[in-house]
């Protein structure tokens, strides 16, 4: 598994290169990576189908106990097969969609990188590894939504999706850490066997809520659903892949994966069922009023994700079975419809509104056929796989009357959307001036395979149920289930409900113009929706940032010094306050006369420097301070320092004298008030630093490192001058760094003085 995943990532990196070297059929060449993964998954099907699972791991950061661990069971197999299988078709589709576009290589890189990350999410067994891949999918999704980066709407949508999902990711990380703590392990395969301990744990509710927020943001659940329809700014291959069939299901996957650990409690059922049902209905109802092809599909995707969460929330063995079937059915029809919709828009020169499309059946017969297959499957008509899914679903929720009602309403909306996207563009009269022709072969393969799949799966639903659905559902339910799917289960009450839904849906479709009008009339209400709240918060954050930057960054040096210094003094003062003031007065050594004299001279010279009104006098008194420093160094056993200080002092005076030539005399005075405040602050600093120095003297290091230097200087480094030995031997690397800094400072000064723009030279 790690090898196959790495191949996918490598393919992503190579994509632009491959495209540059031989731009023809790039997608076809690169699909080797997902194909390898897909074939490998199929070979593991029998093993996993018998309830076995495969684990592979190797250590990563040993000290932290991190490992790269992968785990394949029924659930991950279902998802991984969908991701890699649809991935193959999407790569082909991309090749046609971006034909002749120089950006194709870049797009392929992003989408393959996404695919690899997504495979990582569903295959990883270590929680942190899941998190890393999870964030990678958010990141690649950002790149894909914002792919048309010259379009501001695309940039905003990308940022929005990123902010929402990454924010959710942070919650998820918190939840994961608590979860690992409660379970005592980071391995998912072990966590799911400890459901009893986790649900009894005192942090259970926190874990559940945090994980749910993470999953809900990713899977566009209410109230975080708004980013998904906006994400339709992405190029169609990305929409079809990320935002319908794979990435948005990561949240559902995670919840399903953790169901054995976190599920079977009242809280779980309450949160997931409520949010799921609300999202399901909201998405369905919002879809009714849309007319843009991709947005119609996006809202039903939101709705479908809600349905998945809802089914998972109920958590009986029938709903979990229905969930698995629905995931499969949804991936097939939704990806087909997206690809057809993209094809239609692509071939009609950018037409996106359903109402402006019609009569394309002659121009695009194959797309038409695929769209019909998928659209009917979406509506839940027999004999399509969507019908099988709906039957299983109604059967599963039969004991919950309000969920049955919700299903009927939502189902009707699906019929409407299925018709609008699958039929409407192709039948009826062709509007004037609409020219179109069939999409190229590479863009046909995907819809054909998946569209026919909607039909084929229905007829093969027995084996599909046994080999795909059963292992997945068993993994979610954590008990072995027997799944039997039937295309025709006989004439029973579920079928009646199903037929009622279809009838209602057809009715809705006929009333569609009314819904679109109502939606347009209700548009002003959008400013109270979550999208508007998001925008408001974002704007407020930016305004706050601008405001406090303006307040804090005045551009006046004095203000910065004041803020820094006053904070430092306050902190030092607080520390002394807590310690009850400085205690060590009696421990101080007696004062020798020479130190007192030169110390006093230094203080005097410092004041003279500060008070001086002329440049020369201040430089000279600064020099006096420096020479006194040198003397103090000799008093306390530091001849090296004294020597260096003396030379440096001389040089500083020379340098200042050279430069002051070019600088004016002191001519800017501050107001008396400013000077007084500054003097008070300066005095406070002086007192604080004095106390700090005295307090620092009381700090005793148990074994000072300098003892080692004194001990070993001559023995090992052949030097009697310990200071020099430290500089050139013990800590030579530090010295190397310091002389590098010196060299850079000199180069900087040289560049400032010597390298000037030509224009300025001319002006002189």
């Amino acid at each position: 598994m790690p090898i196959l995943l790495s191949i996918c990532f490598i393919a992503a990196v190579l994509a632009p290169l491959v495209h540059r070297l031989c731009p023809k059929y790039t997608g076809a060449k690169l699909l080797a990576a997902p194909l390898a993964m897909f074939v490998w998954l199929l070979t593991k099907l029998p093993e996993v189908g018998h309830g076995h699972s495969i684990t592979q791991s190797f250590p990563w950061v040993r000290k932290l106990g991190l490992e790269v661990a992968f785990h394949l069971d029924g659930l991950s197999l279902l998802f991984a097969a969908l991701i890699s299988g649809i991935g193959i078709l999407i790569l082909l589709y991309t090749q046609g969609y971006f034909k002749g576009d120089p950006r194709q290589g870049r797009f392929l890189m992003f989408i393959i990188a996404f695919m690899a990350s997504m495979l990582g999410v569903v295959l990883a067994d270590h929680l942190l590894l899941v998190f890393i891949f999870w964030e990678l999918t958010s990141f690649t999704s950002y790149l894909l939504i914002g792919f048309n980066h010259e379009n501001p709407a695309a940039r905003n949508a990308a940022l929005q999706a990123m902010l929402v999902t990454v924010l959710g990711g942070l919650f998820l990380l918190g939840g994961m850490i608590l979860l690992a703590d409660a379970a005592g392990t980071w391995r998912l395969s072990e966590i799911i066997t400890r459901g009893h301990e986790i649900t009894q744990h005192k942090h259970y509710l926190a874990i559940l809520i945090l994980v749910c927020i993470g999953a809900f943001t990713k899977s566009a659940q209410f109230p975080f659903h708004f980013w998904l329809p906006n994400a339709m700014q992405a190029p169609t291959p990305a929409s079809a892949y990320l935002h319908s069939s794979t990435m948005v299901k990561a949240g559902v996957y995670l919840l399903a994966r953790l169901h054995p650990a976190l599920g079977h409690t009242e809280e779980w059922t309450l949160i997931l069922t409520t949010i799921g049902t609300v999202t399901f209905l909201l998405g369905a109802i919002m879809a009714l009023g849309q007319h843009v092809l991709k947005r119609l599909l996006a809202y039903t995707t939101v709705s479908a994700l809600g349905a998945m969460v809802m089914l998972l929330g109920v958590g009986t063995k029938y709903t979990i079975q229905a969930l698995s079937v629905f995931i499969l059915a949804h991936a097939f029809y939704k990806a087909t419809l997206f690809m057809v919709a993209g094809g239609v828009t692509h071939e009609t020169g950018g037409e996106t509104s359903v109402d402006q499309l019609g009569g394309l059946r002659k121009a695009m017969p194959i797309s038409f056929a695929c769209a019909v297959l998928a659209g009917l499957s979406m509506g839940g008509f027999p004999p399509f796989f969507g019908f099988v899914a709906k039957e299983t679903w109604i059967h599963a929720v039969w004991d919950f009357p309000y969920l049955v009602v919700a299903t009927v309403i939502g189902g009707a909306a699906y019929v409407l959307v299925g018709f609008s996207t699958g039929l409407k563009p192709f039948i009826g009269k062709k509007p004037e001036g609409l020219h179109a022709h069939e999409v190229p072969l590479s863009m046909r393969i995907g819809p054909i395979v998946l569209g026919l799949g909607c039909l084929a799966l229905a007829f093969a639903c027995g084996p599909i149920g046994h080999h795909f659905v059963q292992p997945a559902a068993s993994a979610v339910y954590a008990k072995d289930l027997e799944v039997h799917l039937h295309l025709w289960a006989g004439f029973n009450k579920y079928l009646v409900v199903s037929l009622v839904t279809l009838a209602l849906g057809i009715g809705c479709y006929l009333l569609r113009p009314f819904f679109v009008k109502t939606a347009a009339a209700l548009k002003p209400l959008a400013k109270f929706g979550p999208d508007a709240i998001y925008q408001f918060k974002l704007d407020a954050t930016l305004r706050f940032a601008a405001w406090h930057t303006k307040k804090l960054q005045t551009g006046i040096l004095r203000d910065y010094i004041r803020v820094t210094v006053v904070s430092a003094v306050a902190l030092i003062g607080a520390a002394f306050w807590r310690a009850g003031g400085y205690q060590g007065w009696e421990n101080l050594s007696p004062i020798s006369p020479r130190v007192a004299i030169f110390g006093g001279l230094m203080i005097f010279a410092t004041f003279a420097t500060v008070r001086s009104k002329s440049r020369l006098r201040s430089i000279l008194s600064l020099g006096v301070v420096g020479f006194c420093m040198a003397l103090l160094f000799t008093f306390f056993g530091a001849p090296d320092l004294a020597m260096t200080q003396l030379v440096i002092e001389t040089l500083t005076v020379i340098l200042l004298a050279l430069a002051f030539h070019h600088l004016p005399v002191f001519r800017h005075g501050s107001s008396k008030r400013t000077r007084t405040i500054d003097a008070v602050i300066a005095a406070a600093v002086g007192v604080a630093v004095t106390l700090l120095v005295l307090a620092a003297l009381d700090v005793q290091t148990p074994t000072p490192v300098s003892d080692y230097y004194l001990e070993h200087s001559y023995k090992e480094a052949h030097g009697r001058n310990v200071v020099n030995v430290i500089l050139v031997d013990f800590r030579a690397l530090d010295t190397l760094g310091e002389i590098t800094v010196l060299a850079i400072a000199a180069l900087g000064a040289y560049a400032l003085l010597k390298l000037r723009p030509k224009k300025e030279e001319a002006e002189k």
Partner: protein
Amino acid sequence: MEVVLAIVIGALYGGGLYLMMRRNLIQLIIGLGLLSHGANLLIFTAGGLRGDVAPILAEGATKFAVTPADPLPQALILTAIVISFAVTAFALVLFLRTYQTVGTDDVDEMKETDT
């Protein structure tokens, strides 16, 4: 002994910062100089004053008879003195160029980033 040095350090810090809060570029540089003196002396004093014996081994001896002054702060300060000289020199050059380009040596007027 420490008290004297501590007060000197306090005076250097206070004086240095006061000068850095003035409006003339030259005062800013001189303040920087005072401040670096203060910092060097602070490291020196905080390392502990252990008498006037230099950490230099006498000819022929292999061990220190008396515990000498701590060599580590000295090594730190030695480089710090040279570095602060380079900083002062660099600041000088920078201010000189700023003065020539912006046309003022009033620190309070240098508020905008794109003049």
